[in-house]
């Protein structure tokens, strides 16, 4: 069996400036954060991000100046931080190009891409400004094949005259990066808990890099093939990165880190403090091992999931001081 194992730095080096990319996870869980820090450390520029509900994975990439354009539905850490501070600042300062969709809209777009279709119909968004307004101009769209030439289109059902459907364009990305619980060296991947849209995002990307908490033997995975997320050909590389989603949760492994998220949100409100955060946790350490050392073993141990819950039931999430 051919091994798909790759080092984190080597994997991140595959992504060129200007690449189109989607990242797995949802707001506060299973983002490939170690990979994100490595993209920042390698000073990637002009990335095009596609997502439904990212959180701090996108926020720190945006803040570090790695991103040119995003297509999304939401960017925040929910109750840990109800707005992505760098996302807010980037939009308000005119430093980012973006287009708004809804979560269902973005997931439908990924589904179309994964199915090999140019678009899919839905019944959502009519009457809203998600439907009526466009953030990207026609000129911006026309000038760049990485973005769909149209935000959307409306058609009447050929089977039901008078019935309107919203057509949403497929997404195709050069890269998709996921962080999951288990994988084999050969690239069989298992997600525990919610799948979010990880499987669909992977199926509309050319190169899929999966960072993983635990490498498990081939025969263990093949014992329960119904739990495998993706066909073998869909996974290009596997990198073994325990705690690779910190400060976000990984069901059955560890919880979100309320302290780290609080520090991030406080720092990200102020330009100088945000730079200091990057210096401490990204530029000032050689690799992800260095990042975990900067966070500290005591903290990481406090986040470990209780097997009865899949998270840390006694973790304090408010009033941390």
């Amino acid at each position, binding site marked *: 069996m051919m091994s798909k194992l790759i080092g984190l730095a080597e994997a991140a080096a595959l992504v060129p400036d200007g690449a189109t990319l989607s990242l797995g996870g949802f707001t506060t869980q299973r983002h490939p954060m170690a990979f994100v820090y490595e993209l920042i450390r390698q000073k990637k520029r002009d990335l095009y991000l596609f997502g439904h509900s990212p959180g701090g994975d996108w926020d720190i990439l945006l803040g570090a100046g790695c991103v040119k354009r995003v297509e999304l539905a939401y960017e925040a850490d929910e109750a840990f931080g109800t707005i992505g501070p760098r996302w807010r600042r980037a939009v308000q300062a005119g430093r980012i190009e973006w287009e708004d969709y809804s979560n269902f809209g973005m997931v439908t777009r990924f589904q179309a891409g994964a199915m090999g279709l140019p678009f899919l119909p839905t019944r959502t968004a009519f009457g809203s400004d998600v439907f009526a307004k466009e953030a990207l101009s026609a000129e911006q769209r026309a000038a760049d094949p990485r973005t769909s030439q149209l935000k959307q289109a409306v058609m009447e059902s050929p089977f039901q005259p008078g019935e309107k459907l919203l057509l949403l364009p497929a997404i195709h990305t050069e890269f998709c990066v996921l962080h999951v619980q288990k994988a084999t060296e050969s690239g069989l991947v298992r997600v525990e*808990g919610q*799948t979010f849209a990880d499987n*669909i995002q992977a199926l509309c990307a050319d190169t899929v890099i999966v960072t993983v908490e635990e490498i498990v033997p081939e025969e263990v995975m093949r014992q329960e093939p119904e739990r495998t997320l993706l066909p073998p050909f869909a996974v290009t590389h596997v990198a073994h990165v325990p705690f690779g989603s910190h400060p976000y949760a990984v069901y059955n492994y560890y919880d979100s880190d309320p302290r780290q998220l609080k520090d991030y949100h406080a720092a990200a409100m102020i330009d100088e403090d945000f730079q200091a955060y990057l210096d401490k946790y990204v530029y000032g350490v050689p690799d992800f091992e260095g990042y975990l050392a900067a966070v500290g073993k005591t903290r990481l141990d406090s986040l470990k999931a209780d097997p009865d819950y899949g998270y840390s039931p006694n973790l304090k999430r408010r009033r941390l001081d």
Partner: protein
Amino acid sequence: MTTISNPPLTYSLTELMAVTAAREIQDNEVVFAGTGLPMLGAMLAQKTHAPNCLIIFEAGAIGSRMRHLPMSVGDPRTVRGAAMAVGLAEVFTYMLQAGKVDVGFISGAQIDRFGNINSTSVGDYRHPAVRFPGSGGSCDIACLAKRTVIIAQHEKRRLPEKIDYITSPGWLTGGESRKEAGLIRGGPSVVVTTKGVLRFRPTSHEAYLASYHPGLSAENVRDDTGFTLDTAGAFETPIPTTEELDILRKVVDPERIFLK
């Protein structure tokens, strides 16, 4: 912290809102809960009068029975004990779009008199003064649930005559406009605010004040609303019961994550 004393009960405004919103959920209903106070309200309903309500989250948990309050709709706390764990596509297509969701439970930064919600930005859309996170699943829930329960802060600027961006469509411009826009079902049924409860007239779909919270009057609420609010027939919002408050404080949110 605003507290209201109705001897012998003392409760905060957030507690009153959570209880009032939870009471909008009936037993056995399918509830699609958005982030923030809706997660609290849905959990309270399930632990009081609606034990068989099916709570679903867009991130993929279906039939959650949470032992701890989640911080996000993608929190691991929504998973263990749930009926099913899937992903966004399954929830949005097979549950929401297919018409299986009875109640969408969401919150909003700005709301107008037809229950349209803005959670995208304030000011010119392409050059906003303030940017919010964006729709998330809110637009979809507002479009495709059979009815929508909304939680909001009640201030003049948050309930303006016209909102800057319609993220989640309510009754649009009233009358038949929602149907004419292409939406096949749903619409907001109630807005629970920090000052009262707004409902919608049957044909015009315009908001009216159904009740004002204890300690306030219909006039107080009308004066703090940016649009013209019909207050005819408004009564005082029924207060929480001791049992509801007890469960809310001891079981649902003992850490006081959302409760103030």
